[in-house]
């Protein structure tokens, strides 16, 4: 008989809970002045920022909580925090 002590859940399933409703602000990656420093990518606590190209990044809004770290850490002001409207 197989016995399981405790609770076993499936890996990576937290992704079923989208973070859309958490945000007050959302980041807008202007993709104009990017120098490819990767700060936004490296400092995102939720791993929401992804790389499109060497000098082009964006945030996955299913994962983003709108903390604003990417915008603060961007050395060339290429990310803007906009008020969520919905």
């Amino acid at each position, binding site marked *: 008989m197989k016995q399981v002590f405790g*609770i076993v*859940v*499936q*890996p*990576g*399933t*937290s*992704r*079923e*809970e*989208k*973070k859309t409703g*958490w*945000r007050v602000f959302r980041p807008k990656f202007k993709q104009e002045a990017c120098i490819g420093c990767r700060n936004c990518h*490296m*400092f*995102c*606590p*939720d*791993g*929401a920022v*992804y*790389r499109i190209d060497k000098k082009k990044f964006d945030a*996955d*809004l*299913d*994962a983003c*909580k*709108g*903390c*604003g*770290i990417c*915008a*603060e*850490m961007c050395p060339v002001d290429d990310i803007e*925090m906009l008020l969520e409207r919905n």
Partner: protein
Amino acid sequence: MAVEEVESRLLAYGHTACAGCGEALAARTVIEAAGPDVIIANATGCLEVFTTRFPRSAWRVPWIHSLFENAASVASGIEVALKALERSDEAKVIAQAGDGGTADIGMGAFSGMLERGHDILYVCYDTEVYSNTGFQRSGLTPLYAHTTTSPAGELTWGNATRKKDLPSIAVDHGAVYVATASVGYPQDITRKVKKALSLSGPKYIQIHCPCVPGWGIESHMTIRVARAAVNSGLIPLFEIVEGNIIGVRKIKEDERVSVEEYMKLQKRFSHVLKSPRGKDLIRQVQSIANLNIEKFGLLGINE
């Protein structure tokens, strides 16, 4: 939206850490540095709670939670089991906990793990407060920080004790590798985790992680605050291999800040700045930073 890069992270999104959580960034950095071939034993605390809200999990690696106090013991059991099964080469064992889980209630288990010499990397996410239960003081809470159990009032100025020197305690147990890191410098965390995992024996890394609600900062300030702690000298970043300091992160002249500038960023110290005794209190905190600067040689350039 389902972007492949975001979907495939070892610590998945969708967990319930606060926006801007320093501990979440540190944990993501650690697991991405360690890679998929690990088994994690996690103590109770924010990291455990926000990554495994029933019936879901954010982890994509084998991960187990038992109690608040015993992550080091559970990890020890896993390490010994892997040895007995002759499967130690298949996975590295990581134990992880908050500052309360490490410096206070888990101290005995942590000490035992180090003493027995298990091949484990123990990571302490130091939020300087029991974050998960509403910000009670821990042994790693710094001097004069307001917490719910060291409240600032008319006759008190917040936490009356200094931060416990846990890295030295680990060194004195004979840990093969002891390092401090900060979420303000993720590349440094990555390098230290990789280095630790390349050595066999007990290893300890303590990562300083700002807590947005616990420290009273805005969610976008996490990195700025973490860096100010390092650049004030209050959180020295060093590496100790077999008892010898082999490297420190120097404070660059143009990045150096006073402890007052660091404290000003956070609500947990606001009473200090307002107090008539403020100057004296700040001087005491500055002297802790100065001692670190002297002890670890944080100023100047690397030879």
